[in-house]
């Protein structure tokens, strides 16, 4: 760089005004402490966000630049933005299953007003339940239809009940990368017989002519199995089979919730042939009573919760037959709190009250203080562990179908290990192996 000696100071100023580190240093200083010849704000400013504008107006009230009044005003929400905002709000309500009544909540209204004072940004409850519901239901249906075009998919049907306890059937399509909810039908007075199931599955397949359905997965009931036979005639190139996770759930039920059935030649109802878990069945029923007792008696519940919190143990979980994995969760939580339960039921004042209360509490005390309490729990957990591992694994949509068969073939090996640890008997092992086939 050529520097004229008689203009040396000027040249240095010109250079420094362009020097990035120097500019940074100057900009970091307060305006009155900067060198007089330093020219700040050489570039035109980018539009600032509302928060920065407010901050700069507070920090630098004496800025020399004249700002537009528009920079301080909240921009009006245009029609397109309002539609987008309402779309996200209503989809939040539909996707989370929130009550439409909540849209009238004063705190929500106040929160929106804090950002934008415009009226009518939030939809009302009526719009949420009528026009907007129709609009976005159609919108989602269009997206699903678009996702189904040309896709290779497996149809999944599942009998369910909605929040009003009405019988419904859900249909899902499992695609290689994601799953789509197709529809839910209210069956009301329609019997779920094999003809109805087969006809309805056929209807769904016909409604998506551009989708390649490779098969259908249903529950494992005998009615569903009959329906597969009918469907196989109409769709001979498709595969029809039961849900593996549902099969595992039935496996657990066959061990821990077997029911007595009256056979043709017998007078009395009996458990399945060679059923070896009758004692375990009684224990599980007793353990459900223990959990129920601590759920229904607030003083005992609070006492137990205090002890659990001090040891970092979980709350007791109630087993529900329709809720997969809850028997395992119940045994696990009972085992974690075994010592706490023992402390409570062996307290001098535990068995007290009316004769009915005394009788109930004596029974709870007897169950918890039984020598076999811990061992039974460990045995139940050892039987459930391989099943639960598979139930957890199959919750993912990404499990390759080719892994299912070796998983089931591996179950007898898992139970052989349990038997060799003397946790289950040979008879019990053989029963479990038959169930796993």
């Amino acid at each position: 760089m050529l520097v004229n000696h008689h203009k040396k100071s000027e040249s240095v100023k010109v250079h420094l005004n362009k020097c990035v580190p120097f500019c940074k240093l100057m900009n970091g200083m307060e305006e009155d402490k900067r060198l007089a010849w330093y020219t700040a704000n050489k570039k035109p400013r980018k539009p600032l966000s509302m928060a920065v504008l407010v901050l700069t107006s507070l920090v630098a009230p004496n800025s020399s630049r004249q700002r537009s009044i528009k920079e301080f005003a909240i921009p009006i929400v245009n029609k397109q933005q309002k539609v987008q905002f309402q779309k996200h709000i209503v989809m939040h309500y539909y996707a989370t299953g929130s009550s439409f009544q909540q849209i009238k909540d004063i705190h929500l209204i106040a929160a929106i007003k804090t950002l934008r004072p415009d009226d009518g940004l939030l939809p009302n409850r009526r719009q949420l339940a009528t026009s907007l519901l129709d609009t976005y239901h159609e919108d989602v249906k269009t997206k699903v239809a678009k996702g189904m075009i040309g896709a290779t998919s497996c149809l999944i049907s599942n009998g369910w009940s909605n929040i009003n306890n009405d019988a419904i059937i859900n249909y899902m399509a499992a695609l290689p990368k994601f799953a789509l909810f197709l529809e839910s039908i209210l069956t009301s007075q329609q019997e779920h017989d094999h003809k109805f199931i087969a006809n309805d599955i056929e209807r769904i397949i016909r409604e998506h002519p551009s989708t390649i359905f490779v098969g259908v997965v249903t529950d494992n009931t005998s009615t569903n199995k009959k329906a597969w036979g009918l469907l196989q005639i109409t769709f001979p190139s498709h595969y029809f089979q039961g849900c593996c996770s549902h099969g595992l759930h039935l496996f657990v039920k066959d061990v821990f919730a077997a029911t007595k059935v009256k056979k043709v030649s017998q007078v009395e109802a009996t458990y399945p042939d060679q059923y070896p878990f009758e004692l375990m069945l009684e224990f599980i029923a007793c353990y459900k009573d223990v959990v129920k007792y601590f759920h229904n008696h607030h003083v005992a519940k609070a006492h137990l919760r205090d002890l659990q919190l001090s040891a970092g143990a979980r709350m007791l979980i109630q087993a529900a037959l329709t809720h997969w994995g809850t028997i395992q969760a119940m045994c696990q939580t009972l085992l974690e709190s075994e010592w706490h339960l023992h402390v409570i039921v062996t307290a001098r004042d535990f068995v007290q009250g009316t004769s009915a209360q005394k009788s109930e509490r004596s029974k709870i005390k007897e169950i918890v203080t039984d020598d076999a309490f811990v061992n039974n729990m460990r045995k139940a957990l050892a039987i459930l562990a391989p099943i639960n591992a598979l139930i957890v694994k199959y919750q993912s949509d990404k499990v390759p179908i080719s892994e299912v068969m070796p998983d089931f073939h591996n179950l007898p090996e898992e139970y052989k290990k349990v038997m060799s640890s003397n946790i289950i008997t040979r008879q019990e092992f053989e029963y479990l192996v038959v169930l796993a086939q």
Partner: protein
Amino acid sequence: MYGIAHGLSYLLDPRHIGDGLPANSQSSLEEVLINSHVDDVTPIDDGRKEKLYI
């Protein structure tokens, strides 16, 4: 607890290729595979097995 599709996928998956399957299970799965319909309209070609092995 599993179906034909699980068996076929175990047989066809290059990671498993039916590894450890008993001989009778493998041959019955192969039979199912050979006799599978290509679509819902075309009837099964009886000579398919022959063509495959020749």
